[in-house]
C-alpha cells in the first residue's frame, strides 16, 4: 500500500530507535503513510501496524489520539487556523469567518473541487506572528483577509510555495 520511497523513509525512522522498540516509529510511519495517501483509511492504519509488527489496536490508538492524523479525506490544502488566545486577540475569528465566506464551506468541510479544507486548531506555538495558520509543511503568519485572498488565488493557480 506504500511506495518504495515511503517504505524507505519509514525504515530510516525505524533505525532511530533500539531494535526492540519498533513501536517508537509508529507516529512517524502513520505520518508518512498519510502523506502518501492524503488521509488514513482503516486498511492503511492496519497495514502500518503490520509493517512494524504491532497489534492493529496500537496503531488505531495513536491515529485517533493525535490531532494531525486525518481519518477522513481532506482537501489538497488544509487551512489549519489557530484559534487559541493570542491569535484570538488578534482576530482569528474574523479570519475564519472570511475563509468560510470566501470558500463557501464551514469549519471542518472541504470545497467541492477537493482543493480546500478549513479547520480551526489549538495553539500552533507561533503566537508572536498571530493570527497564524499551518498549511502543509509551513506556517503562514500575520494573516489578513487580503493576504488570504491572494493566497487562495495563488493556490488555485497551482502554486503552493507562497508564504
Amino acid at each position: 500500500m506504500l511506495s518504495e520511497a515511503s517504505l524507505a523513509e519509514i525504515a530510516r525512522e525505524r533505525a532511530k530507535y533500539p531494535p526492540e522498540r519498533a513501536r517508537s516509529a509508529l507516529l512517524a510511519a502513520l505520518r508518512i503513510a498519510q502523506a502518501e495517501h492524503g488521509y488514513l483509511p482503516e486498511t492503511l492504519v492496519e497495514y502500518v501496524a503490520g509493517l512494524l509488527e504491532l497489534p492493529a489496536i496500537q496503531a488505531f490508538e495513536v491515529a485517533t489520539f493525535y490531532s494531525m492524523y486525518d481519518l477522513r479525506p481532506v482537501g489538497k490544502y488544509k487551512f489549519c487556523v489557530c484559534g487559541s488566545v493570542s491569535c484570538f486577540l488578534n482576530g482569528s475569528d474574523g479570519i475564519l469567518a472570511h475563509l468560510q465566506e470566501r470558500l463557501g464551506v464551514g469549519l471542518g468541510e472541504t470545497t467541492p473541487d477537493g482543493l480546500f479544507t478549513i479547520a480551526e486548531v489549538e495553539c500552533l506555538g507561533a503566537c508572536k506572528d498571530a493570527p497564524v495558520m499551518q498549511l502543509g509543511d509551513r506556517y503562514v503568519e500575520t494573516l489578513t483577509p487580503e493576504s488570504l485572498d491572494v493566497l487562495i488565488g495563488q493556490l488555485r493557480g497551482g502554486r503552493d510555495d507562497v508564504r
Partner: protein
Amino acid sequence: MYVNGVTLRNRGLPDSHRIGVYRQTGGYGALAKVLQGPMSPDQIISEMKLSALRGRGGAGFPTGLKWSFMPKGVAGTKYLLCNADEGEPGTCKDRDIMRYEPHRLIEGMIIGAYAMGARSGYIYIRGEFVEPIRTVEAAIDEAYAAGLLGERILGTDFSFDLAVHRGAGAYICGEETALMESLEGKKGQPRFKPPFPASYGLYGQPTTINNVETFASVPDIVLHGGEWFLKLGKPNNGGTKIFSVTGHVRNPGNFEVPMGTPFRDLLGMAGGLHPGRRLKAVIPGGTSTAMVAGDAMMELAMDYDSISKAGSALGAGSVIVIDDSVCIVRVVERIARFYMHESCGQCTPCREGMGWLWRVLHRIENGQGREPDLDLLQNVGSRIEGRTICALADGGVAPVVSSLRLFPEEYEHHIRQGSCLVTDSRSVA
C-alpha cells in the same frame, strides 16, 4: 542591559542556523573546553547549580539539581531528552531557537549528555513545526559530519547519538512523562510519579529531560562560568530569559532580557499598547498561569520569585497582554476551550471538568448564565485542582478562578444583563 545575548545571540546573522556561522561566533567552544580541558561531569553540574538556571519549559526547577539526580553506574542506556513540544498558548520561543540557533541547543545537549553519562538522546519536536524540524535535522547532520556527535566525540572516548522525534499534535505531550509515552509510540498520557524519570524514564531507563531554551543556555554557562550567568539575573533567578510578548501589543516578539527586568520595560520593547488602549490584564507565563490585573502588573519584575509573590507564575515566560477592547469572559471562555480540547482523558476530574468549565463559561458569554454559575465555576475548579496525575487541569482552572477574582463585574454583567459589559460601555460611549 544584556539583551538577546545568550540563546538568541546569533538570530540576526545570515545563516545563523549553519554550523560554520555558529563556530565563527565561538560555537562548540564550550564542548571543547569540557572534553579537552577537561572538565569532570561533577564540575559541570556544580557550575550549572551555581548559575541558578531554572527550567525554561515552565516549571522552573533548578537545572543543576535535576542533572545531579541522574544515577551513576547503572546498567543499560541512560537517555537525554529535549522537550520541544512547545504548545502552551502564548509560548513561541523554542521555535525561534530551533530556527535560528539549532547548534546552541545541540551543543547544550552534548554537554548535558557528557555530564550525566547519557549515551542516546532525542529532541521531541511538535509535529506542526515542520520547518524547525528540518532545520534541526540538518544541524544534527552537520554535527555528525564534524565529529561532534556519534562515536568518540572529538577523539575522546565519549559517544552520544541524537535524533529528532516528531510529535503528531497533542499539547499534553509537553508533559514530560506523556512525552516519553509518545516517544515510545503510544498515546501521550502522563505517567503517575514517582517513579521519576531519573530512575524510570524512556523505555524504563534513567532519563533526564529539559526544555530547548534550558539546553541552549548551557554552552555559555560552561564557557563563562555559573557565576557569570547568575549575575546576568538575580539570586535564585539566574541569567537571561526569553519572554514571548503577544496579544494586544504593537510589536509582538521574543525578547531575551535579564531575569528581574521590569514588566514595564518589557512592554515597551514590544511597542506598548495600541493607541488609546488601557492595559486590562496580563497572563505572565502562558495560559496555565493566573491572570494579573494590568495596574499590578506594571509594578512587577519579570522573574520566578516576583511573579510567584504576586500570585501567578513565570511559566515559560509567555506574556499575554490583554487591553480594554475585549471582554474577559470571552477571553477565558476561549482559554477554557483549549484545555477541554487538550485533556488526554485519563483522569476523570480533568476529562469531565475541563468540558464543564467551558460549557458554563460558554453559556455565561452567550447571555444564558444563571446567578449560581459563578459559585459553580469556583466549586468545580476547587474539585479539580490537585486531583489529577499531571498539571494540565490545574492550568485550566487558574485562568478561570483568577479572572473571577479580578473581574467579577464583567461576569455579573453577562449574567444579569445577558450582554457584555465591554460592548455595552462602548455603545454608550
